């Protein structure tokens, strides 16, 4: 119960602790990768950010489903904030991924990275979500349409991934070998801490933005009651 009421404080606290712990582990404890060298350390942030973005889109879709199904009053707002956060983390995924590509392979973009291409498609899809939302007047219609679109998005994720994988067969990109993370124990532990840190950070930002928007709404109601 206390956790629910103080979700913002709790998640911000957890984020502070976990992010610091992750950075300490990444830069002071975990050994440098033998193959890729120091640049491999980007991976400890890049992949958790990507996974957290997926979680945000999933959470947004879940809230959207709840909105269409049971109609709790706050669900539309929560769905919107989750997707907003997902887009921010998605943009971060593309940026950190691009930097990683530059340092690993010398180019800023490659079509052979399935993850990056998938995120590009998803980024376009969810960017359109905001265009859609801002072009419909606020009300139950907007909430419904946004919810349906959010559900489409989460269905698109696996199908796009499949499509991108199949596309490689006829697009013939120059294949950059990047061996999957066969991580030593310490690397895996650091990765997990970093992932937990990203989830905590996303939760904290989510609660923060939600609190701000809810206050906005309450103040508007108050104003209408007083004027």
């Amino acid at each position: 119960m206390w956790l629910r009421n103080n979700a913002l404080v709790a998640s911000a606290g957890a984020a502070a602790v976990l992010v610091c712990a992750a950075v300490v582990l990444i830069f002071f404890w975990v050994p440098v990768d033998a193959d890729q060298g120091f640049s491999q350390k980007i991976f400890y942030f890049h992949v958790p950010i990507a996974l957290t973005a997926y979680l945000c889109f999933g959470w947004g879709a879940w809230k959207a489903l709840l909105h269409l199904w049971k109609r709790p009053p706050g669900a539309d707002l929560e769905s919107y904030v989750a997707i907003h956060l997902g887009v921010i983390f998605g943009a971060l995924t593309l940026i950190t991924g691009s930097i990683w590509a530059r340092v690993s392979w010398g180019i800023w973009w490659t079509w052979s990275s399935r993850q990056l291409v998938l995120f590009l498609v998803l980024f376009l899809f969810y960017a359109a979500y905001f265009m859609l939302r801002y072009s419909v007047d606020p009300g139950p219609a907007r909430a419904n349409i946004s919810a349906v679109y959010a559900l489409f998005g989460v269905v698109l994720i696996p199908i796009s991934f499949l499509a991108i994988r199949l596309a490689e067969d006829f697009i013939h990109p120059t294949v950059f070998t990047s061996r999957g993370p066969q991580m030593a124990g310490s690397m895996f532990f650091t990765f997990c801490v970093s992932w937990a840190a990203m989830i905590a950070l996303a939760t904290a930002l989510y609660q923060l933005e939600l609190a701000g928007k809810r206050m906005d709404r309450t103040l508007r109601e108050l104003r209408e009651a007083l004027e």
Partner: protein
Amino acid sequence: MTYIRDVTALARKDLLLELRARDTLPAMLLFVVAALVVFHFALPGSSSQLASKGLLWVAIIFTALLGLARAFAAEREQGLLDGLVLAPCDRSAIWLGKTFAMLMFLVLAEVVALPLYALFYSGIGWSTIAGVALANLGICAVGTLLAAMAAASRARELMLPLLFLPLAVPIVVGGVGASVVAASGRYLALLAVYDAVFAIISWASFEYVVTE
């Protein structure tokens, strides 16, 4: 069985309207021919046959977009969407009827476009035709739902391509793959999966898009 009757009635209404107005289909036909001509100039001399196959799919997607933009135009211009929604039929029947009508338009446009493509560029095999057939279903299913969303927005026709193109990526991959790769089975399977999944969720969620 009233459901099927409703769907047929709605589809027939759209086709009859088009027969009388004759604005969407001629535009689609002209567009696809013009696009195929432009593509000739867009392909530098050393481009392969494969590149032109890819461009065929671009033409199909954008021709479909042109038709879809008009999907709810009549209802919107005359404020009929509310009336349609109040009709005593399942809302999803509206979606299904509209999708069938769009499918007819797209197929008619392709009946012209594909032979023309074979004439201008290179021959078309059975796998390409199968790919086009499967892709049509996905395009019309998703496109009709998105057209309804776009109709509710202030930006109208501008919204539809923005909403549609990211969702069109698997269709293009499946279609081009089926046209270009010898072992086209996987790509046709991808299209079939896309059609099944997105048709179901479009059918189920149309009600929420048009009501409040």
